[in-house]
């Protein structure tokens, strides 16, 4: 997978870098002043791969870093790699059509991170998919909740009804007791003045009893109905209730997990701030306990989640009329707790395993040290100087820890001697063939043990490195920086080849030219060119010697949004916008290509038209004297068509606007295609801005009608059925001589544009209109 573009958010001085494309030829240079953010770009990309960032990369507003990288990919590889689940609708199609894959690493507050499959349209597809899933879950939950609500209402009504029945029963009883009393009272008052009211009271009591009895009877009937209904609903809602309980358990587990994670994180933060080992040990024990708890809670959480999903799906099916046995069977088969679709993170993690390895080649870790403890290498202690270089050395040598366990010190020395010889031969070959040097340098390493003068390490093994030149044996740091750098770089390349040659590598190199002399810096470029087919290189530099003047499109320029304000954010300019960068930022280019020609009169800031050759210049400049155009045009001829790209790079470097005019001949088409690909990266708006191809005209002479060509240029009456340029080529005329003669003839005879025939006039006007349409 080829690394093609990146975007960085919230990483040191970079707020949002926007998308930046790498040079299509695999070598991308980053130029800019000190503190402009060059190294931040390399670090951000390195962190994208390693996942490791320190808190000091955070910006003042503490916004979370996010780094996205896109890679060229064949969609067939996606099908091959993501074959266990499905991708949401639209994701695969998008990757297929764009032929690229974007991965984003997003950090969290604790500097932990995750990788996601990303890209604008890809993210939309994932969002849609997730929304659909959430809606589905909600639908299920709603149905279950509705069922439970109905049951709860029925139970509530039942309880009310029972209560009412009780009240009515008591009332009946009470009336039953009141009637004998009323009868007795009525008998006692017989014949008296109060007899009548007593009889009325008895009658009314009897009536109330009857009413209460009737109400009770009705209530009993109602209660029976409600009982039956509640019973039925309770039966139906058993699974819904079970689902509700599972949901509550899951929510509790979730809360518990959050709490456990928070506790763990808080203690981890405290642990990180403790300096003393004794104090650390105490906290470490507590940390372990919390970690165990977290793992346990996590397991419970997973179980609760699965249970919740299964029970919800089962309840939903049964409520929908499926028998419980059938529903259980269906749920077993469907496995709703297992998502059949890849999440962004799952897909991202799988694909991340196949992107090229990003290696940050920086001085502290990557330059070969004088010595390094074997334990540090084997334990992977990245904080020691030269760790990476020494590791590379062991990898290249094929050495494993077992090598150093050799019982016989004589055999071990023999082995080391042979390895030293092999590695030296390889390096000399590389040194001579790739950068043309003939220095006789050999590299040696030896296994030594600390003496008693190092009480804390006494007896511990360490590796010692030597670089030998003729009879001189010196530590790497005693050698020139160039030799040490190249040697270390060589080890890096060799180690990459040994690791996984198919995986590919993106080499991030911070200031490779630092303190190397000019020639050595140019050698660095040669090495980049040599390896670019297999290894992509991104390097930062201040040095003009690390810029190829013919390939300015390889550069990204970095500067602060507000110049001289180190607190302002970093802006990145690519080949398309390089001319917008400040003069100070572009100073390596100016240094490389000499004076700033934008300040002289021959070439202007705008409206420069780069021409294929001097003949084109003669013809166009002559015709331009005959007509009046609305815009100024400054013609700039290349000495030869093959030099057009050099001119393009020079003008790009000088920050001058230009248009390239090419003919429809094969060479012109090739230049057109190269610039379209390298400078415009296929962007049609840039193609229109920078390029005009006279595709229907092979050469400038073809803009003249055959008659005018014969009349004003060739001065012969001969049949020319082919194009004028073909005629010149076949008959071996000197184009430059004819063009020069034409220029003189126009001047001598005071020819006018109207002297040409309609065809010639139409053709030239077409061309000038095209030029005017893109010029300022």
């Amino acid at each position: 997978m080829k690394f093609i573009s990146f975007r960085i958010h919230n990483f040191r001085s970079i707020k949002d870098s926007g998308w930046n494309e790498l040079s299509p030829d695999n070598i991308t240079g980053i130029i800019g002043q000190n503190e402009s953010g060059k190294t931040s770009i390399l670090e951000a990309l390195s962190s994208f791969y390693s996942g490791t960032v320190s808190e000091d990369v955070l910006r003042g507003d503490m916004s979370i870093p996010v780094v996205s990288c896109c890679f060229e990919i064949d969609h067939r590889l996606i099908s091959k790699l993501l074959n266990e689940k499905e991708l949401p609708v639209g994701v695969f199609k998008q990757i297929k059509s764009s032929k690229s894959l974007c991965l984003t690493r997003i950090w969290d507050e604790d500097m932990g991170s995750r990788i996601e499959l990303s890209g604008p349209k890809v993210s939309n597809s994932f969002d849609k998919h997730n929304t659909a899933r959430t809606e589905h879950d909600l639908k299920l939950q709603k149905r279950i909740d509705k069922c439970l609500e109905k049951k709860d209402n029925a139970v509530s009504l039942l309880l009310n009804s029972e209560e009412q029945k009780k009240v009515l029963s008591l009332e009946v009883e009470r009336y039953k007791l009141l009637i004998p009393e009323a009868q007795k009272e009525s008998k006692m008052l017989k014949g008296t003045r109060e007899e009548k009211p007593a009889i009325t009271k008895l009658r009314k009591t009897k009536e109330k009893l009857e009413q209460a009895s009737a109400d009770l009877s009705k209530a009993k009937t109602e209660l029976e109905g409600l009982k039956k209904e509640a019973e039925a609903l309770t039966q139906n809602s058993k699974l819904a209730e079970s689902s509700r309980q599972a949901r509550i358990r899951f929510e509790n587990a979730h809360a518990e997990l959050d709490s456990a994670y928070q506790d763990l994180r808080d203690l981890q933060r405290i642990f990180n701030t403790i300096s003393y080992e004794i104090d650390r040990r105490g906290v470490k024990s507590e940390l372990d306990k919390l970690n165990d708890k977290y793992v346990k809670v996590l397991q419970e959480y997973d179980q609760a989640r699965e249970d919740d999903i299964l029970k919800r799906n089962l309840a939903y099916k049964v409520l929908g009329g499926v028998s419980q046995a059938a529903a259980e069977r269906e749920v077993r088969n469907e496995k709703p707790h297992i998502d059949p679709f890849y999440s962004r993170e799952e897909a991202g993690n799988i694909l991340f395993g196949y992107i090229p390895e990003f290696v940050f080649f920086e001085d502290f870790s990557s330059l070969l040290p004088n010595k390094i403890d074997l334990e540090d290498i084997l334990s992977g202690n990245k904080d020691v100087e030269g760790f990476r270089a020494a590791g590379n050395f062991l990898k290249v040598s094929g050495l494993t820890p077992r090598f150093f366990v050799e019982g016989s010190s004589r055999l071990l020395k023999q082995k080391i001697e042979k390895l030293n010889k092999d590695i030296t031969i390889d390096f000399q070959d590389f040194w001579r063939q790739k950068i043309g040097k003939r220095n006789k340098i050999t590299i040696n390493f030896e296994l030594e043990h600390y003496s008693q003068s190092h009480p804390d390490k006494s007896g511990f093994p360490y590796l010692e490195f030597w670089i030998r030149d003729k009879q001189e044996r010196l530590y790497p740091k005693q050698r020139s920086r160039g030799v040490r750098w190249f040697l270390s770089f060589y080890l890096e390349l060799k180690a990459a080849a040994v690791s996984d040659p198919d995986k590919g590598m993106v080499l991030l190199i911070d200031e490779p030219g630092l303190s190397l002399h000019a020639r050595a810096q140019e050698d660095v470029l040669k090495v980049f060119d040599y390896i670019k087919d297999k290894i992509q290189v991104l390097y930062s530099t201040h040095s003009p010697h690390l810029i190829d003047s013919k390939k300015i499109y390889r550069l990204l320029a970095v500067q602060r949004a507000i110049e001289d304000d180190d607190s302002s954010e970093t802006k990145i300019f690519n080949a398309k916008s390089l001319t917008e960068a400040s003069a100070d930022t572009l100073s390596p280019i100016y240094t490389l290509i000499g004076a700033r020609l934008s300040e002289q009169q021959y070439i202007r800031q705008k409206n420069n038209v780069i021409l294929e050759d001097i003949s084109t210049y003669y013809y166009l400049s002559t015709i331009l004297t005959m007509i009046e155009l609305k815009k100024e045009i400054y013609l700039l001829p290349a000495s030869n068509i093959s030099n057009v790209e050099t001119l393009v790079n020079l003008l790009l470097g000088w920050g001058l606007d230009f248009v390239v005019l090419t003919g429809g001949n094969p060479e012109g088409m090739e230049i057109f295609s190269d610039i379209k690909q390298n400078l415009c990266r296929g962007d049609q708006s840039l193609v229109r801005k920078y390029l005009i191809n006279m595709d229907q005209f092979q050469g400038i002479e073809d803009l003249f009608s055959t008659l005018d060509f014969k009349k004003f240029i060739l001065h012969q009456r001969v049949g020319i059925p082919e194009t004028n340029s073909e005629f010149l080529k076949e008959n071996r005329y000197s184009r430059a001589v004819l063009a020069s003669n034409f220029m003189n003839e126009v001047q001598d005879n005071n020819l006018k544009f109207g002297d040409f025939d309609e065809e010639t006039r139409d053709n030239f006007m077409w061309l000038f209109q095209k030029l005017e349409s893109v010029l300022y």
Partner: protein
Amino acid sequence: MKKEDDFKLSFRLQKEEFERQKKEMLESIEYASLIQAALLPPTQQMNRFLGDHFILYLPRDIVSGDFYWIFHMDDWVYLAVVDCTGHGVPGALMSILGISFLNEILSKKIFIKPNRILNLLREKVMKALHQTGIHNESKDGMDIGLIAYNSSTFDLQYAGANNFLHFIRDKSIHQVKGDRMPIGVSGIEENSFTNYPLRMKKNDIIYLFSDGFVDQFGGSKGKKFKYGPFEELLFKHHTMPMGMQKDVLLDAFLDWKGDYDQVDDILVLGLKI
């Protein structure tokens, strides 16, 4: 006696040889005429792209130096009436060259104005015949009337090399003079042919013709027919159906020619818009 017999025998043999050669040559030319006829646009093609039209085509010999040519591209139809230098076999050879070149020029299927076609055709002829304008050089070539007609828009463009376009509109006859230079080298330096854009109207009638008819000797005084009477002839009968116009022209030609020999190939093409 013997000498006389020998002479007679020799004479007879020579005559037989001459007859044989003549027969072979005629057979050869007859066959060539089939090829030439095959190179002319088929009647169906002419009907399809031109609609109501007629062609009066009377080669003087078995093969002809005159030819007509048609080419269709999108909404445009190119139509040419061509008169090659000479007649008979030399004219026929030149006509084949002309047909090939015209087809070649339009082979890219992009619209080219008629005058630019003539410019290109002249370049091809000059190159093929190695003409450079020097003294005593062959001046072979062709005269041509070429139109490009768009039946959707009624646009017509004409260019002519020693050839005129005639059209009749609203009861009057109009003449568009082409350039007075041939396709091929001539005494003066080559200039661009002129393009004449015209907007035609429904029922306009266009006539393109070679000079064979007007140069035909005949009549009571054995004179050329000439352009004036020919224009009058066309105008007089232009309201007749196209097929009948052809018959009238043929009758007029035969009447005029009478017992005189046909001096050149005859080609007249009429097209009703």
